[in-house]
């Protein structure tokens, strides 16, 4: 279990961008552990910001993921992502990546019914423009 979580953490990084929003980069092909780990981490950070009455804006870069895994193996990760999109405290999330990422994330966003708060883009520029409002 410890081994899994260490490996999972190598597949994403989360940091606070100097502009004040939370930024996440997914790197390489993902596993259920890496996606769930990143989602949990983001939920915690967003909750902390909201507790201080600050805006919780999140930018997610998925451009460095070579292959999007849509198999049943990742179903649990997709379920957790929808749950977080529905229940977590945040203001806006902008995701950017290729068409496969856009289809996957947009479908999850529709299931969560959060199209007003989460948008998916092809480029970082578009994502940032929308995130900053």
């Amino acid at each position, binding site marked *: 279990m410890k081994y899994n979580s260490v490996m999972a953490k190598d597949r994403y990084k989360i940091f606070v961008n100097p502009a004040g929003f939370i930024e996440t980069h997914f790197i390489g092909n993902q596993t259920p552990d890496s996606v769930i780990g990143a989602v949990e981490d983001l939920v915690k950070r967003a909750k902390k910001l909201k507790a201080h009455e600050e805006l919780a804006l999140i930018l997610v870069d998925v451009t460095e993921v070579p292959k999007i895994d849509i198999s049943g193996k990742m179903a649990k990760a997709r379920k957790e992502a*929808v749950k977080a999109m529905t229940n977590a405290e945040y203001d806006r999330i902008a995701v950017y990546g290729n068409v496969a990422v856009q289809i996957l994330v947009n479908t999850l966003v529709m299931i969560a019914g959060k199209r007003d708060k989460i948008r998916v883009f092809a480029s970082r520029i578009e994502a940032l423009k929308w995130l900053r409002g």
Partner: protein
Amino acid sequence: MENLFSDLPIRKFRKGQILIYEGDPVENIYLLVEGYVKVSNILANGSQRTIIIYKPGDSFPLTSFLSGEGVARYFYECMTDVEAKARPQADFQAMIKGDLAIGEQLITYTYKISQQFVERIETLSAQSARSKVISLLAYLAKRVGVPEGAKVKLNVPLTSQEIADMCSLTRETASLQMIKLKKEGVVNGRRHLYLDKVKLKKLEAA
């Protein structure tokens, strides 16, 4: 997928009718019940390029809808008389909300279709005329082919111009390649083509 359309009436469209224009906002999601629909765009030189064909049971334009673009990236034209059901995209969205099982089906289906787009576009952009025609025939055999003994019958009637548009070739070049393949016994028939499975597979692997 068909459950999402079960309460809707069937609408009829004529051969040649364009259901969706490139650049149009995605207003409806269609389920094809009968007939074939081709997806194409117009190239800078004015020629038409057909990318994929939808068959009964398929739904479109899901890639444009789910990618969040909001506008159709291609023309969707009836290749035959068509029967289809259409659901307004807002209703479609409302039906997906909260339903992870439907979402999973949509992700799998749309991902497969988008892979077909990518493969076809790659095939169209980087091969000789002969390879383009062979790749197209292999694609059609898989997509709209019905096995008949050692052959596969293509269920959709195709004109020379349609074959050319699906290969991004001029009609003359595509016809020349088809004549050669007919002489080699890979293809026969006129509008409904029959393909020799073994010979086609060998050519595809070569």
